C-alpha cells in the first residue's frame, strides 16, 4: 500500500519524456549547417582565384613584364582590331619593388631592434607602453597612413608626390608586425644559450647579434615576409603619396607607379579593362608566394 502512494507522488514531478530522437536530429542538422556554411566561407577565394586565372592568363606574356603600361589610345586600337592589348606593367613592377624595398630598409632594423628591446624588458611599464602603441599602430587604417605620408613627406621632404612618401607610409604599416613577430620569436630562444654566451664573457651586443638573432633567424624572416606580403597589395596609401607614373622611375623623390596603382588606373579606364585581370593575377601570385614561403618556414621550424 505504502509503496503505491509514493509512486503516485513522485511520478508527476519527474517527467521522463524520451526526446533523444529530437536531440539527435537537431545535432545532425546543426552539423550539416556548419559544413554548408564552411563551404560558403571558402567559396569566394576559390571563385576569385579561378576568375583571375581564367581571365588574366591570356594577357600574360614576355611584354607583360618588360613593357610599360599602354595609353588609352593604343589599348583602344588593339581592342578594335581584336588583338591582345600591347604593353605590360613594367613601370608598376619596378615601382612596387622600389617602394617596398625602401619601406623594408626603414622598417626592418627599427622593428627588429624594438622587438629585441621589448623582449629584454618584459613587464616594465615603458616597454608595455611601447607594446600597446605598436598594437595601436597595427590597427591604424592604411588610408590614414597615406595622409601621414602626404603630410610628413610629400609636403615637407620631397615637395611633391614621391616613391619615398609611399615607402614611409608602408614602413609604418610594417613596423608593428615586425616588432610583434620579433618579440614572439625571441621568446622561443632557449635561455641557456644566452647564459652560456654570457658566461663566456661575450659582450651584450654580441649576444644579440651572434646568438639571439641567428638562433631566431627563421622566425624573424617569417615575420618580415608576412609584413612585406601585407603591404605589397596596398593601394589606398599609395594613391595619396606616390600618385603613379607612366614611365619606369627609380628616383625615390619622384612620382612612381606600383602594380596596385596600375590596377586602379586600368579599372578606371574602360579601354584597359582586360589588363586588370592579368595585373591582379600577378599581384596576388606575388603576395601568396611570399605567404607560402613564410608558412613553409614556420612548418619546417615546428618539426
Amino acid at each position, binding site marked *: 500500500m505504502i509503496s503505491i502512494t509514493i509512486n503516485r507522488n513522485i511520478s508527476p514531478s519527474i517527467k521522463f519524456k524520451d526526446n533523444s530522437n529530437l*536531440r539527435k536530429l537537431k*545535432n545532425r542538422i*546543426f*552539423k550539416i*549547417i*556548419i*559544413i554548408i*556554411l*564552411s563551404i560558403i*566561407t*571558402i567559396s*569566394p*577565394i576559390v571563385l*576569385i*582565384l579561378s*576568375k*583571375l586565372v581564367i581571365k588574366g592568363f591570356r594577357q600574360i606574356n614576355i611584354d607583360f613584364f618588360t613593357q610599360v603600361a599602354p595609353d588609352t589610345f593604343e589599348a583602344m586600337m588593339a581592342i578594335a582590331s581584336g588583338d591582345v592589348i600591347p604593353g605590360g606593367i613594367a613601370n608598376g613592377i619596378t615601382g612596387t619593388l622600389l617602394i617596398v624595398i625602401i619601406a623594408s630598409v626603414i622598417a626592418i632594423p*627599427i622593428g627588429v*631592434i*624594438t622587438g*629585441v*628591446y*621589448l623582449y629584454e624588458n618584459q613587464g616594465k611599464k615603458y616597454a608595455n*607602453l*611601447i607594446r*600597446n*602603441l605598436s*598594437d*595601436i599602430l597595427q*590597427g*591604424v*587604417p592604411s*588610408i*590614414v597612413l*597615406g*595622409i*601621414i605620408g602626404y*603630410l610628413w613627406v610629400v609636403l615637407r621632404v620631397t615637395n611633391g608626390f614621391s616613391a619615398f612618401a609611399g615607402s614611409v607610409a608602408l614602413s*609604418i604599416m610594417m613596423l*608593428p608586425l615586425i*616588432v610583434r613577430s620579433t618579440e614572439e620569436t625571441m621568446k622561443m630562444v632557449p635561455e641557456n644559450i644566452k647564459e652560456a654566451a654570457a658566461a663566456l664573457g661575450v*659582450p*651584450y*651586443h654580441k649576444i*644579440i647579434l651572434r646568438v639571439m638573432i641567428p638562433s631566431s633567424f627563421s622566425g624573424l624572416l617569417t615575420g618580415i615576409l608576412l609584413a612585406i606580403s601585407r603591404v605589397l*597589395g*596596398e*593601394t*589606398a596609401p599609395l*594613391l*595619396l603619396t606616390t600618385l603613379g607614373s607612366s614611365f619606369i622611375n627609380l628616383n625615390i623623390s619622384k612620382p612612381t607607379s606600383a602594380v596596385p596603382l596600375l*590596377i*586602379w588606373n586600368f*579599372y578606371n579606364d574602360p579601354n584597359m579593362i582586360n589588363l586588370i585581370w592579368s595585373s*591582379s593575377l600577378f*599581384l*596576388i601570385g606575388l603576395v*601568396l608566394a611570399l*605567404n607560402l614561403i613564410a*608558412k613553409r618556414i614556420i612548418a619546417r621550424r615546428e618539426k
Partner: protein
Amino acid sequence: MNSEKITKHVLFTVSLIILIISTGILASLIKGAMPAFKEFGLKFIIAPDWNPTEGRESYGALVFIFGTITSSLLALILCIPLAFSTSLFIAEYFKKTRIASILKTLVDLLAGVPSIVYGLWGFYVLRPAIISLGINDQGFGIFTSSLILAIMIIPYATSLSNEVIAMVPDELKEAAYSLGATRLEVIFRVIIPNARSGIVASYILALGRALGETMAVTMLIGNANVIPKSIFSTGNSMASIIANQFGEADGLKLSSLIAIGLLLFAITAIVNAFGKFVINKLS
C-alpha cells in the same frame, strides 16, 4: 661607458621611434584637422552636408561616419555565421584532420588577397549577381560593400576564435558527453561559455579591420554623399571619401578630409582597444 650600457641605450633609443611615430601621427592629424574644426566647430562631426561649391563651402562628417559604421556592422553580422561555422569546423568537428588544415589554408589565403582585387571581384562578379537578384538596380550600395567586407574580415574573425575553441579542455567536453549530451549541446553549453570572450574579441578585432577598409568599399558603395535610406541604397564611407577626393583637395576641403581621417583613426583605435581589453581579461 661600457659596451653593455651603450647597447642598452641604443635599444632604448630605437624603441622611442614607435613612441615618436604614434604621437606624431596623432599630432599631425590634429594639426591638419584644426582649420576644419575652427571653421565648423564640433558640429563638423554631426553635420550631414558635403558641399565643395566655392563661397558656400560647408563640410560635415556625418554621412561618412554613418556609412562606415553601418557597412562595417552589417559586414560583421554577415560574417559571424560564416566565421563561427568555420571555426567550429576547423577547431571542433574536424579538428586535426587533413580537411580542416586545407580549409584553414584557404581561409588564410583570403587574408592575402589585396583590397583592390576584392573590389574588382565585387564589381565584376558580386554586383551583377546582386542586380540579377533584383536587390538593387545598379548593384552598388551599402549592402554590396558589406558583403565584400564580410568576406575580407573572415580570416581575422576566425584566427583567434579557432585558437580559443581548440583550447577548451577535453575533460570538460568529455564530462558533458558522459552525461549523454549531444555534440550540439556540448558546443552550446560547454565550448561557447568557455571560449566566449575570445570569440567576442576576435569579432571586435574583425570589426576594426572592416572600419578602415578603403579600396573595395570605394568601388562598391556607390560614393553618394547622402545618408542611405536603407541598407540597399548607395552611401559613402570615411576611408572612401578620403581616397576619392584627397588628390584634388586643398584649403578647407583638405583640412576636412584630414579631420575625417582623424575621426576614423579615433573610431578604429577605440574599437581595437576594446577588443584588446577583452583579450587581456581572457588571459
